[in-house]
């Protein structure tokens, strides 16, 4: 589904990713872990198309398409969605309008007309219940005045509505208390499907107690230094990152 090959990325002249390769297949949950500053967030930002990241070499393909040639919105329409670590506040744009505009953009890309209002409301109602959010959220401006936990739930809500093929979640656990974490994890787990890939970027193993990954990768100094199964996350939790850093330097 997603194939990243020997990706080199510089930000403001500084090389952050130095030859990262990664393959995510449909049905798999991948967790990318690593110490601060290793480039974890850079990967998902580059895939989403954020400005300021220069790909100096390497490729990213999604279902055979060259991702780097696609506009930001085309990437989303192709099925790649990024859940932000710090979701931006968008004053004046109501949540419900964002959801409707996004969903209808996706339908238009698939040659479908707008979803009829009753059907749309039924869908939204089910999804906000799943995220244990109040209907009043729909009327509020996107993320404006939301708590940290509410913002993260809102990101997952968008995923639940838009049903991406590849869900990328950047530090979705940061700043969450345990209750909010459970709700977010339940939401992500409900996205697990045979035809969907999930890429989690996280610093802490804690999240992975709730969302059990199939593959864990350790990102050190812009490269994947070690890959393994879910047990690798536990090992990192007890031993820290230093041993991987040393191993990769050796």
């Amino acid at each position, binding site marked *: 589904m997603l194939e990243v090959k020997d990706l080199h990325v510089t930000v403001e002249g500084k090389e952050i990713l130095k030859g990262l390769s990664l393959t995510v297949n449909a049905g798999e949950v991948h967790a990318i872990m690593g110490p601060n500053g290793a480039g974890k967030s850079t990967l998902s930002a580059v895939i989403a198309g954020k400005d300021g990241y220069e790909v100096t070499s390497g490729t990213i393909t999604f279902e055979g398409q060259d991702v780097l040639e696609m506009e*930001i*919105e085309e990437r989303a329409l192709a099925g790649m969605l990024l859940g932000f670590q710090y979701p931006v506040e*968008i004053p*004046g*744009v109501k949540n419900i309008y964002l959801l409707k*505009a996004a969903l209808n953009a996706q339908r238009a890309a698939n040659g479908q007309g707008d979803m009829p209002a009753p059907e749309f409301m039924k869908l939204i109602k089910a999804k906000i219940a799943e995220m244990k959010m109040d*209907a009043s959220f729909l009327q509020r401006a996107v993320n404006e005045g939301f708590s940290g936990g509410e913002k993260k739930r809102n990101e997952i809500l968008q995923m639940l509505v838009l049903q991406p093929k590849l869900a990328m979640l950047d530090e979705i656990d940061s700043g969450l208390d345990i209750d909010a974490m459970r709700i977010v994890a339940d939401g992500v787990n409900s996205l697990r499907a045979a035809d969907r890939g999930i890429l989690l970027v996280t610093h802490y193993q804690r999240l992975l107690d709730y969302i059990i990954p199939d593959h864990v990768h350790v990102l050190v100094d812009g490269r994947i230094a070690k890959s393994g199964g879910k047990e690798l996350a536990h090992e990192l939790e007890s031993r820290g990152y230093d041993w991987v850093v040393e191993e990769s330097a050796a």
Partner: protein
Amino acid sequence: MSDVQTFLDRLAERTEARRQAHGPEPTWIAARRQAGAARFDAMGFPDRRVEAWKYTDVRPIARGDFALTDSGDFSQASAAALTLPIVAHRLTFVDGVFSAALSDLGELPAGVAVLPLSRALAENHEAVGGPLGRLTGVEFSPFSALNTAFMEEGAVVRLAPGSVVKKPILLQFLSRANAQPVMSHPRVLIEAGARSQATVIEHHVGETEAANFTNLVAELMLDRGAILTHYKLQEAPLSDLHVASIHVEQGRDSRYTSFNLNLGGGLVRNDLITELNGEGAVANFYGLFYGQGRQHIDNHTLANHNAPRTFSNENYKGILDDRARGVFNGKVVVKRDSQKIEGFQSNANLLLSDRAEIDTKPELEIYADDVKCSHGSTTGQLDEEAVFALRTRGIDEQTARGLLTLAFAGEVMELVELAAVAERVELAVAGKLPERFNLSGLVEAAILLHDD
């Protein structure tokens, strides 16, 4: 020949032609004309050394040679395409000339009169002569003097005490593409009796190629408890020149709400002034201006708190693209002993291009000590992070920018109660946003679904 002389010559020709066609005018009108002409002659057009005109160069008007017209011809089809799709009591003026063919007053409630100025004068000129010019004299500005010298047509609205007009009163000013540009000096006179209530829409619109000069004076008198909502929807062609002086006088417990929505016009100057003369009077000034190309939009507002316990609330939003220029000057004056007043003022601007410019100046003058006043202004660009965030959800860039621009205008647009007006403005500001108008319904549906 000086710029001023060109206008005075036109005036002399016009006055003579009128005399030959209709005989002498009532003395008071002739006297006002003379006073207006004398004042205009003495002052001339304002240059940019005059503080109130510091940011607005009126040379495109001063150097113009504008004819006067007697023709109100306008194709029914193009009028229909331009008009607001709204059920209203409608008066139409074409380049200032009343068009009976394009007017339809329908059935007005008892005690309510809506008529062209020419007819009001013909019926009873003395009833007009009392209020007309009481708020906007020839001293106000060279343009009010010029208007007084030339005035012929306009709209008179009289609301008897207690009368309520449910449908909006639409005053439509159409600008025509003429071989030679023309000028018009419309007068609007609204007398809202005690506890009367009405909504008046002043709509300026025209043919794309038009390049005329409109110099309007409006005087709005709200007696005790009257409620008047005044929309000024400015969608004039981009070569049109437009100056408007709007004076409001408010009695006790009256409420005046202005929506000054400016989308069109090449050079636009609005002066909006209210005199809050009675306790409990409330004035709301809501404005939205959207300029593109080389449009120049200047809004000067003034709230005079002449009595205690009066309230003014102002919120102007400006959106400027390309090389458009905006001017906002909002002033709140609290007279001595006008205690317990509240005056709030805010102006926020969004610059969509590096070459767009805004000059903004909120002013407060307070001569009382027990007052609550605030003012502020901000200017910024679209939040690129928000544009990115929307695009990552599959929303195309143009829609994303449109959404965010509209969101910026939201605070003002949310208050617009007339869907036809809101739609015009939203389309202009944001381009076509699908399903926009079903949103409120959606949200209500969301709450209903959640409740059951």
